[in-house]
């Protein structure tokens, strides 16, 4: 069961964050690369408006590097950070095409269209840094092929200027056709990625926080602009191209900024963890803990379940076994592990997965409370189990009694009646022989006595009249046979569950017997009613009260019977003020 639970696990992080030195080195490399780019642009012999170009390039590369480093540090488990860093550096590499020397120019040119592929990759891989679905992997693979592979082919054919080092032929028209195909392909892939993002957002539910929504929107907008830019290139819209390029760069650079805002906002959201810690100080019970976690995570739909190793099952807060839902778009599952063992699981809005730090922080803060909560739930599960087994024992007993009564009725009793019938006929045929007649009479009265005794035995085994005709009919005879006058008030419409009826019958039967034996009462009353899904049976006498525990054995058995059905039996017996027995038995 645990193995099949599809989910993210929270426990010890599986990847260590890279050392600070490494991160600083990469950050410095980013700044150096920015410097180099600016220098290249200013010195280039083929870049118009070099200052603006350098600034645009820095805008879409340095924030990716820095944002990526922060993400990497914060979420070492996610590949999203390294991917952003790679995207930033790829942008730098592509700027080498501004160099005048052949080698860097060639390398820069080869990387010219890698950034669009990388951006598609980065945006689709949010937030885990991994491409989880085959269609995403296919789009990204196709984008790399088009952005890099086809680029090399184009360069080999001498497209985009003949000065690169890998030109082996000069086929400008073929190269141009290839370029058109390349740009259109890339732009289609970018639009496909936008469609995926939109679909994912629809399936995943509304993001819990606005900053996450903003981030995904900025991804989609950047991809749309990239697609527009590529199409403008493909169809050589010379006039508009430069403007579109600037706007695109501007938009693409927004994504890492939105990401940083999201991190900041997540940090603010994590201040709710502080409130959580305060709430946990009050040692909440499982439902309170769930509420506190739901508030801290900002997900009111949160469900908390516990893993009970002894039952080898997940259980809800009442200790009832539950199965983890299949992983679908509607709910996400986060397993909380402790020492390599499952402890609990959160079933939550899938968009919470975009905020792993918050989940980590909340579950870490709640660790002790979760352990305590599990003990609560385990106890409840045991109580639940015991109740079930008691109910089964009593039901089995009742079933057996019913069977015995039935056997008596259809067997011995029926045969004795048939026998006495034959004796009756025999008597009719007999002459006036007084000796024979008196023997026959004796035999008949023996049979009559046996039948009477059998009837009492059968009634003691199982009140067939209750199963056959309901509680009201059964109680009528009980009240008539009672040792004191009984006021009977049965407010019941129709039948209820037979187990409930039989239990109620025994409550009245035993209570009235006690009235006769102990109470010295002058009268008693029996009231049966149905309210709020419960059958309420009350037997009250006006006797001496003060029932001692000795007469409790019968009551104990009654209590077992009533409690096994989820009900309650209570006895009030103040000395000198009579006795009141009341059973409340659920009857849906």
């Amino acid at each position, binding site marked *: 069961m645990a193995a099949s639970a599809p989910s993210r696990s929270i426990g010890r992080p599986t990847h260590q964050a890279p050392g600070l030195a490494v991160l600083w080195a990469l950050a410095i490399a980013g700044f150096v690369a920015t410097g180099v780019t600016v220098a290249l642009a200013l010195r280039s012999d083929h870049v118009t408006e070099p200052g603006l170009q350098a600034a645009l390039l820095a805008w879409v590369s340095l924030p990716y590097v820095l944002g990526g480093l922060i993400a990497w540090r914060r979420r070492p488990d996610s590949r999203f950070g390294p991917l952003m860093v790679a995207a930033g550096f790829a942008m730098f590499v592509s700027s080498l095409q501004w160099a005048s020397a052949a080698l860097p120019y060639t390398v820069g040119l080869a990387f010219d269209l890698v950034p669009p592929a990388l951006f598609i990759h980065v945006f689709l891989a949010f937030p885990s840094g991994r491409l989880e679905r085959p269609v995403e992997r296919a789009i990204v693979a196709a984008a790399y092929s088009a952005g890099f592979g086809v680029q090399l082919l184009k360069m080999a054919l001498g497209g985009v200027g003949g000065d690169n080092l890998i030109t082996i032929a000069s086929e400008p028209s073929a190269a141009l056709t290839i370029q058109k195909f390349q740009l259109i392909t890339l732009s289609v892939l970018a639009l496909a990625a936008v469609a995926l993002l939109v679909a994912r957002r629809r399936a995943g539910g509304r993001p819990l926080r606005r900053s996450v929504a903003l981030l995904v929107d900025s991804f989609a907008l950047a991809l749309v602009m990239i697609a527009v830019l590529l199409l403008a290139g493909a169809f050589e819209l010379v006039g508009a191209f430069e403007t579109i390029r600037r706007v695109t760069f501007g938009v693409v650079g927004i994504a890492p900024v939105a990401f940083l805002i999201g991190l900041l906002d997540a940090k603010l959201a994590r201040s709710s963890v502080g409130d959580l810690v305060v709430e946990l100080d009050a040692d909440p019970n499982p439902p309170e803990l769930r509420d506190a976690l739901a508030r801290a995570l900002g997900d009111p739909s949160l469900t908390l379940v516990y893993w009970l190793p002894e039952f080898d099952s997940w259980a809800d807060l009442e200790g009832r076994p539950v199965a983890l839902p299949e992983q679908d778009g509607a709910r996400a599952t986060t397993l909380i592990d402790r020492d390599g063992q499952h402890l609990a699981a959160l079933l939550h809005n899938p968009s919470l997965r975009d905020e792993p730090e918050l989940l980590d922080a909340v579950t870490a803060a709640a660790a002790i409370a979760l352990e305590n909560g599990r003990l609560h739930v385990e106890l409840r599960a045991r109580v639940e189990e015991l109740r079930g087994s008691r109910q089964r024992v009593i039901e089995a007993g009742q079933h057996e009694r019913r069977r015995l009564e039935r056997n008596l009725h259809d067997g011995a009793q029926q045969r004795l*009646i048939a026998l006495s*019938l034959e004796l009756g*006929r025999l*008597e009719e045929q007999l002459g006036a022989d007084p000796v024979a007649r008196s023997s026959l009479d004796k035999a008949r009265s023996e049979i009559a006595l046996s039948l009477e005794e059998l009837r009492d035995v059968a009634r003691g085994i199982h009140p067939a009249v209750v199963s056959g005709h309901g509680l009201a009919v*059964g109680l009528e*005879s009980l009240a*008539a046979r009672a040792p004191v006058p009984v006021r009977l008030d049965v407010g019941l419409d129709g039948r209820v569950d037979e187990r409930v009826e039989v239990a109620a019958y025994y409550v009245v039967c035993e209570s009235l017997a006690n009235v006769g034996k102990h109470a010295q009462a002058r009268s008693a009353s029996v009231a049966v009613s149905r309210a709020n899904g419960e059958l309420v049976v009350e037997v009250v006498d006006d006797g001496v009260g003060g029932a001692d525990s000795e007469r409790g054995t019968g009551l104990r058995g009654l209590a077992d019977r009533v409690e096994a059905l989820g009900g309650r039996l209570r006895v009030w017996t103040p000395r000198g003020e009579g006795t009141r027995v009341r059973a409340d038995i659920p009857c849906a």
Partner: protein
Amino acid sequence: MRVAIAEDSVLLREGLARLLGDAGCEVVAQCETGDDLIRKVNSHDPDVAIVDIRLPPTHNDEGLRAALEIREHHPSVGVLVLSQYVELGLAMRLLADSADGAGYLLKDRISDVGEFVGAVERVAAGGSAIDPIIVSTLLSRKRSDDPLAQLTPREREVLELMATGSSNQGIADALVITLRAVEKYVSSIFGKLGLPSTGTESRRVLAVLLYLRS
């Protein structure tokens, strides 16, 4: 007298049929279930139907339901319910608002052939037959303020017989007294219990039972 019998025990059903046959009754239908009995009552129109209270398929209340249905739809057909236990609550359900042509007896009563056939004939003729156990349960019922205490032992005996559905003649025969004496006892009993004297013998059965039950 034409009789229909519903009883799922073959032994008893056939014994009952023989017994009634010996007594000169015509058993026009024998069946095992309540539904079957209702069909046969529809087609044979007997004078009286004898029904076991516990019949297949569930052995719960099929017999009683069949009896109540016949009483509702065939008022001319007497219904005698037999059972291995007698319950006051069931008697009251069966009689509901009239004891005409209704009987409820312990199965044991079959052994006294004369009494039993007499009860069948009484029910067939629109009278009633209530098991003495029911009456004695009611009579022994504890009451805080008990007008029954005012009855003489003889009056008590008459009341018991009256409540089981005996006619005045039946009571006279049973107690070996004259019909006139019975009539005197009856009016004295009604007077002491404060009951209005009623017409038919089966009507007074219900009146007495209801009085004793309250």
